């Protein structure tokens, strides 16, 4: 479903991604780990289409489409979802209006009529339960005054609403206490199926105890430098990244 080949990307002329390759198939869970500044969030942003990054080389194929040629909104409508490492606060835009607009744009893309008011409220209620998101939060402005944990839960709530084919979770676990971590992971697992895939970006094994990866990759200096099974995450947790740097001859 996703095939990234030799991806290079810059921000303000500085190269961050330097020839990255990754293939993801339906039903798979991929974990991406790597030191701070390696380019993990850059990869997520580039895949989601953040215009502040310039792709200078390489290709990304998503279900047979040239992902890089699509606008951010079309990528979302095609079924790509990014759970932001730092979700944005948007005062004055209510969660309800935000989600209604998003759902209806997705429906329009599929040639469907706008959702009815009752169906929409039902959907909101149903999906809120997936991540145990307080009704009060759903009535507030987008992320405004949410705690760190609430913001992350709100990301997974939106994911549940939009039912993506590929979800990228960028450090969704950071800043979560153990209860919140369990709720968020349960949410992600409930949404998992044989048809969709997940890329989990994390520093910690503890999330991977809940969301079991099929593959673990190390992203370092803008490239995937090592890929293996779930055991790699345990090894990284134990030994850090220095041995990988050594392997690379640094």
């Amino acid at each position, binding site marked *: 479903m996703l095939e990234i080949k030799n991806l290079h990307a810059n921000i303000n002329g500085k190269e961050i991604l330097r020839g990255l390759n990754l293939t993801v198939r339906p039903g798979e869970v991929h974990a991406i780990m790597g030191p701070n500044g390696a380019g993990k969030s850059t990869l997520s942003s580039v895949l989601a289409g953040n215009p502040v990054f310039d792709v200078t080389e390489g290709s990304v194929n998503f279900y047979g489409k040239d992902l890089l040629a699509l606008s951010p909104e079309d990528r979302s409508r095609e079924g790509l979802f990014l759970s932001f490492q730092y979700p*944005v606060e948007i005062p004055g835009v209510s969660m309800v209006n935000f989600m209604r607009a998003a759902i209806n744009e997705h429906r329009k893309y599929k040639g469907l009529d706008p959702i009815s008011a009752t169906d929409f409220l039902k959907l909101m209620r149903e999906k809120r339960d997936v991540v145990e998101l307080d009704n009060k939060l759903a009535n507030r402005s987008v992320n405004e005054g949410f705690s760190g944990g609430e913001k992350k839960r709100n990301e997974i709530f939106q994911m549940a609403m939009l039912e993506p084919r590929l979800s990228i979770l960028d450090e969704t676990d950071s800043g979560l206490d153990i209860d919140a971590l369990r709720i968020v992971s349960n949410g992600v697992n409930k949404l998992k199926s044989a048809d969709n895939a997940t890329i989990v970006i994390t520093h910690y094994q503890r999330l991977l105890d809940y969301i079991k990866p099929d593959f673990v990759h190390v992203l370092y200096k803008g490239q995937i430098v090592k890929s293996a099974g779930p055991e790699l995450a345990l090894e990284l947790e134990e030994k850090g990244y220095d041995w990988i740097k050594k392997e690379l001859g640094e």
Partner: protein
Amino acid sequence: MTQIEKQYIDLYNAHHGLIEKPCAALLNEARQKAFPLFEALGFPVKSNEDYKYTQVQDYFAPDYGLNLNRLPIPVNPYEVFRCDVPNLSTVLYFMVNDSFYQKESVKPVLPEGVIAGSLNEIAQSHPELISKYYNQIANNEKDGSVAFNTTFVQDGFVLYVPKNVIVERPIQLVNILRGDVDFMVNRRLLIILEDGAQAKLLICDHTMDKVNFLATQVAEIFVGDNAVFDYYELEENSTNTTRVASTYVSQGKNSNTLINGITLHNGKTRNNIHVTLSGEYAEANVIGMAIADQEQHVDNHTYIDHAVPNCHSNELYKYVLNDSATGVFAGRILVRKDAQKTTAFQSNKNICATREAKMYTKPQLEIYADDVKCSHGATVGQLDENALFYLRSRGISAPEARMLLMFAFTHDVIENIRLESLKDRLKHLVEKRFRGELSKCSGCSVCQ
């Protein structure tokens, strides 16, 4: 004095008899005093610091028709006019150009003792009441556009609420500009709330025809001790309309006002708002917003005079500028030497959505008392790129995302409205405006 002033001076000299003939004596007395002031001052020009970005003089240069003869305008607003703010169950009045529109069969219900209607008529039927207030706080000595209005004005609207009378229903005055040739109108508003009175007045400005209009307006608002007054002005004029308005508010002890000015659609607009807090514990909320695009120009100039101790003022203005629109905000706050324990807050936030849009903002605090709490802040920015990307990443198109953010930006201005039904209606109108569906005066069925 230039040719621009000269054409009006000549007009007055040649026709002041005609101007005076249908008018109440006290309007004419004020007129005779104002004319030499206008001659001396002329129209405001950019070299005047208060008019730095708005050359009002130029607005008066074209040749406009004036209805000095007070000929009836062939229009029945009750029939043709569908206001954008309907169903508020307001007590509704109309002004067509600068004439109060009288319809015998429509007798609005107002509490006992309340007087509302034509300035010229009420000045004749109640001269002792009107002479106490008319032209008492309008600053003819300082501003030539005000002296001009006093010189040429022939009618307007009066609202008088006697002591301790509470008018529950909002009163609505719809100003309609109507003409077959380029036209000038000079309107006057006089609002008097005696001690303990309460009222809400909503004024809607509309243009019905495609010709060029120039509307001057001077409002004098007297809010007595313990009185509460909400004043909403909603402009939805055409791009061919120029508005030059000055509003003077005088507040008594423990009074409370909301002075709300929204420019939803316009051509060129200059609003002066001058609030004097002259009784202790008075509170003024001066709130405004402008949405402008194309070549539209909106200049709001506010001046809050804390003349006595223990008063509170709260000011919030927001502008959203698109295309080549220009916005100006100047907020002057004067805290006089004796006005201890003043609290005065001012905020002006603006979005320039394009490179060509220009915003000029200037706070001006003059504080002569030492025990005060004052703050001000002004920002000019673009839409938040991170927020825009966040919305788009959920499938919302770029224009829709921009619309949501612009709408969100105006949220707190709308939340300050103290009339629930107007609040809801405005949300709808603002959204329509951002969607480009208010590109002309939508309130008039005749120009659709």
